[in-house]
């Protein structure tokens, strides 16, 4: 049997203290309404190099539990690089070197004893381009739970597949053709399949790298609704170039620029009343 995502709220609230040190890069100052929030993922002083090129500079970011945090910023500013740090997908790139500390519920995810497989089943990821496995719809979802031994028995697995597809809002469209290839679905359906696949292993955090950028407005709206529903159970970090989308789905937004976080705040404040000139330029389209 698989259990629902009901991890106890970890006692990390007191560690949400304003970072000190870099006045100009504006550490994520504790913003209004965060005092009662749990920090699910906490990044401190994260530096990242590709070979000799530094892509991230002293990043600090709190990702709050059961909230959607949007990462916005111009192309090449390091959003994807940062996101990949959170489930250690960067480990796959040989030239990457990372410094700093990232914790999940207070546990250092780069600690030598950490099992990457376990980390990644706790921190799921959805990619920019839908990438379902070249297998059936059913297999796409059943694969990882079976692999990790989350379920035993055909019955449980069927149930889990249905449950995940329902949660991803895809069940009604595919329930009668679970054995057809996942790659035969439309782009938007494939992306929801990938989300279903990610939630099937019951993660606590879901990372999404521009999940709707290859979709049409209607499919995008579906995904956004889905994200809105998912945040009750999961903590979500989403990279997006679509500022309206960030404004619609995210409770918090971080503005990245040149590998630094220029500003982090709750979304309303960031969009209506940015503290930094750069942020204002970017969100008003004056960024050049």
């Amino acid at each position, binding site marked *: 049997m698989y259990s629902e995502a009901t991890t106890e709220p970890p006692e990390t609230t007191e560690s949400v203290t304003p970072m000190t040190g870099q006045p100009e890069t504006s550490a994520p100052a504790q913003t209004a309404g965060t005092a009662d929030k749990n920090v699910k993922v906490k990044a401190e002083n994260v530096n990242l190099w590709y070979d000799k090129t530094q892509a991230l500079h002293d990043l600090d970011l709190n990702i709050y539990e059961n909230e959607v945090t949007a990462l916005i910023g111009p192309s090449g500013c390091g959003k994807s690089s940062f996101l990949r740090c959170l489930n250690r*997908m960067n480990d796959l790139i040989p030239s990457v070197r990372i410094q700093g500390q990232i914790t999940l519920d207070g546990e250092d995810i780069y600690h030598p004893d950490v099992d990457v497989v376990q980390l990644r*089943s706790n921190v799921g990821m959805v990619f920019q381009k839908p990438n*379902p496995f070249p297998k059936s719809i059913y297999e796409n979802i059943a694969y990882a739970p079976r692999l990790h031994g989350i379920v035993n028995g055909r019955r449980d697995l069927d149930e889990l597949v249905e449950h995940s597809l329902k949660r991803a809002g895809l069940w009604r469209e595919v329930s009668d053709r679970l054995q057809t290839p996942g790659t035969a679905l439309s782009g938007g359906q494939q992306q929801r399949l990938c989300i279903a696949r990610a939630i099937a292993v019951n993660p606590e955090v879901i990372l999404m790298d521009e999940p709707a950028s290859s979709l049409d407005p209607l499919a995008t709206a579906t995904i956004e609704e889905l994200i809105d529903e998912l945040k009750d159970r999961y903590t979500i970090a989403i990279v997006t170039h679509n500022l309206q989308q960030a404004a619609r789905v995210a409770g918090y937004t971080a503005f990245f620029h040149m590998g630094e976080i220029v500003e982090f705040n709750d979304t309303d404040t960031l969009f209506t009343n940015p503290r930094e000139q750069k942020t204002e330029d970017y969100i008003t389209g004056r960024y050049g």
Partner: protein
Amino acid sequence: MSTRKLTGSANNPQIRRRYRAEKRFKAYCIGAVSIAFAIIIAFFTDIISQGYTAFWQYQVQVTIDYNDRAERLGQFALDRDMREVASRGATRSIPRAIDRNPDLLGTTEERWVPVKAEIDQYLKHGRDILEAKHEEVAAAPELPDKLRKKVDALIDEGRIESAFNTRFFTTGDSKLPELAGIFSAAVGTLYVLGITLLCAFPIGVMSAIYLEEFAPDNKLTQTIEVNINNLAAVPSIIFGLLGLALFINFFGVPRSSALAGGLTLGLMTLPIIIISTRAALRAVPDPIRQGAFAMGCSRWQVVRDHVLPSSLPGILTGTIIGLAQAMGETAPLIIVGMIAYIPEAPSGVFEAATVLPAQVFTWASEPEQAYVEKTAAGIMVLLAVLLTLNATAVFLRRKFERRW
């Protein structure tokens, strides 16, 4: 008004020149294709016209008389006239048959046996020409007058007939062309390819998986990669020398054996399999690997569950093409002694064996005319097997190809 703008090209020299150049180039290309095609057609026509007669053989009906002289020499089982017509090989087994079953002594038996190769050739190629009064054709096989009359008489009696030559597919090589067949060479080829496959496939595929999916990208792996690519371009005879030095002289594998040949061809096929497998693995889109890693797969699980299933058709295709290439190889096998006279099909991989192309080579160097059609027929069999292998490769690729 638009007519002036769009249809004036007939008068525009630049456009006319462009059209002409295009036509000329197309004509050259068609010419090239035609030449290639004509060569293939000529090759096939030549081989088939020379070889198809080998699948038919003239047989003569003889009376076998199990007498006590035949117990010593099979020839004596036939009467004197027939001894000149029937193949000497047809009566070879009679002494042994009597030995095994003495009750046969004193009995007789009617049996169809192959005619001598000269008579077979005369009937196949000479008789019609002579009858058509083209007596001046020098190449036409001829027989001494007395024998020719005898053969003509036997044909009139209905005691010489042409029949499908099953013997060609069921016996091995023979010094008597009318008895020579391709069976032992086919068995030898089977053994050799089996060993080639057994040693080259697992090693090749696993090396490719390691190099493509696991190995770090450093000087060492780059050197290995370059060397493997070079290995695929090494002339095959050099693999023969390597096989001779390594397997026969060092490890003491029996000379001329299918094992020696198979291992040698395995060395030759290995780089081909590695290269084609790596290409197949590289063709699997990276997002699939990323997705699998993000689901918490270990590298081996990614390879086993996602990369290998997607690349399997490509791997199999590459392997079959590598095997087909190995199957047509003769040079390295000459070096390890597999050009041998093998009348009996080998019953194991340690016994002396020969292979189809080597058999063709042996027949091609025989002086008798009867071996010419054997050579061509051997080539036809070889080509048929190769075409089957390649068709299998295409079929596999079509059938299991996945789209994403």
